[in-house]
């Protein structure tokens, strides 16, 4: 768990530096720094064959589900060696069906109806695979969210809905955008089981996700998990997030999911500082190797690019 969280953290810290300091990456990129516990806790509760439908804030989802860091980094560099051959970029890096990362959308809310369809498909195939869909608090005000949640509840689909409530939809605070006291309440209105969980506590997310996953797999019952968390950075990599009160940011930094998890493991003597150092080193090396791999690659040829518009065959 810690190792995966560290990998995501180091990957994104490197990405931030590649954008802002080294100037080697361009385009929009949405970091999930501070939200690593949700990706990792959720994915560890899933089976490898389970499927995810996530969003443009998806580096963590992709890595936690098992996409190799070097492919993800090459994708961010727009290289043909990336998992989407450089055609998707940062916002679609969590498309890697080989490890169950089925789809990542860049349109807020649009993944929820798609997750409903995947869930229905898996249910009709009697595959026992379940679907986990991830979205932010901004998504819950879209029509697609409500249409999708209704279908998932109505048809009892094996879908887990992870709402990563990171308190801000771009710069708009949750309280200024959502009328109901909690998001979970909205899901409950559709007749769905809900869990509100501390999204900065990886063990809590894992336990909640495990319970929900079993219910989805065995009873084909969906669960809505509202994971309370905080974006350590702004909306996108260029956004300093300085519209947020300093005290609020400072308070949440103390709740950093990696710091608190390390502390807890050390206090309970479940890990030694040396083991943490080793994990830090290993993940740092993995990220450095990923950057080296990405830099070696070249962009897809323009002619090959055109072959990906339509699939062959009828």
């Amino acid at each position, binding site marked *: 768990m810690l190792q995966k969280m560290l990998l995501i953290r180091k990957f994104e810290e490197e990405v931030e530096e590649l954008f802002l300091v080294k100037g080697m990456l361009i385009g929009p990129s949405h970091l999930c720094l501070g939200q690593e516990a949700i990706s990792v806790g959720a994915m560890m509760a899933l089976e490898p064959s389970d499927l995810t439908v996530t969003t443009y804030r998806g580096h963590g989802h992709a890595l936690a589900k098992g996409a190799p860091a070097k492919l993800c980094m090459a994708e961010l560099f727009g290289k043909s060696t990336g998992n989407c051959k450089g055609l998707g970029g940062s916002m679609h890096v969590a498309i890697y069906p080989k490890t169950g990362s089925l789809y990542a959308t860049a349109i807020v809310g649009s993944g929820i109806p798609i997750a409903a369809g995947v869930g229905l498909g898996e249910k009709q195939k009697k595959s026992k695979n379940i679907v986990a869909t991830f979205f932010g608090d901004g998504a819950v005000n879209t029509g697609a969210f409500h249409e999708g949640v209704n279908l998932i509840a109505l048809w009892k689909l094996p879908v887990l809905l992870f709402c990563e409530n990171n308190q801000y939809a771009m710069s708009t605070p949750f309280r200024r955008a959502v009328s109901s006291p909690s998001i979970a309440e909205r899901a409950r209105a559709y007749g769905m089981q809900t869990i509100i969980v501390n999204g900065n506590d990886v063990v809590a997310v894992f336990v909640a996700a495990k319970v929900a996953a079993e219910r989805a797999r065995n009873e084909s019952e969906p669960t809505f998990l509202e994971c309370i968390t905080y974006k350590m950075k702004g909306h996108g990599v260029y956004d300093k997030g300085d519209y947020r009160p300093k005290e609020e940011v400072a308070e949440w930094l103390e709740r950093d999911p990696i710091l608190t998890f390390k502390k807890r493991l050390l206090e309970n003597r479940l890990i030694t500082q040396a083991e943490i150092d080793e994990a830090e080193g290993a993940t740092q090396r993995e990220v450095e190797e990923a950057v080296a791999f990405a830099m070696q690659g070249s962009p897809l040829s323009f002619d090959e690019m055109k072959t990906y518009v339509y699939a062959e065959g*009828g």
Partner: protein
Amino acid sequence: MRLREITYSEALREALREEMLRDPNVILLGEEIGVFQGVYRVTRGLLEEFGPDRVRDTPISEAAIAGAAIGLAMAGLKPVAEIMYMDFLPICMDQLATQAAKMRFMSGGQLKVPMVLRTQYSLGRQHGSQHSQFTPSWFLQVPGLKVVLPSTPHDAKGLLKSAIRDQNPVLFVECGVLYKSKGPVPGEEYVIPLGQADVKRKGEDVTIVGVSRLVGESLIAAKKLEENGISAEVIDIRTLQPLDLETIVESVKRTSRLIVASDDVKTGGIGSEISAAVLEAAFDYLDAPIIRVACPDTPIPFSPALEQMYMPNADKIVQAVDQIIG
């Protein structure tokens, strides 16, 4: 070959049924398609034959219908979703144009989305501004999507079967006023490949490209023109994406004159695109301006009298031809 006369709507139903029998992964979803048997009866009897898992009634949630179809396709099934009126497509436009059409591309070929979205337009049925629109040209800006526009029962069946077997998202636009029209349809299995225009009538003096309902009107116009000694060739595009430009250009090179007749609003419509493409490919062969016969740039009126004036028809096509053949 066994030829029978059946309606456009029966031909569509046969296509759905045959493909459902052929491939257990084909499933239908949409509003009122099951218990109610379809607003236009295209899905009549299919719930009884295939059961509720394969003929799935949905709530009025167009975005979720299209989104669920995408998800089903990604899960390995072959969804055929129905959007009751073409006017409701904007509600699921994100799913169709921004999700389905781009998934293969932006995943670098990792994903494919074999799905069909069936819909129909009801111009000519006094359905007013919000239940009559014909807007396939919007999708000319959406590479990754295929767009099919059948004009006869024969084509409706063969094209729908191909659309269901296609590995890409296909928007299949039926014509409401044609549902009850009859035509010869072989009893034997056949498919019509997507991307092939059909020369519905050979001619030498002018090429009339017809779209959907206006293919029939173009053929009526061609008969009238023949009485005046003008030989018109009528081409049915059958699919807008991919567009078989080659067949159109080859014809224009022989006739040197082009009319494009379609039920959409004239500005920025199908006729505009075909005109521009023909000018690029065959400018030197043209002896006269290209004329678009289409709807005026207003919303569609309810008033039956006004709607008749609003709609393109055989007479308007004849007038357009007279304009360029002095």
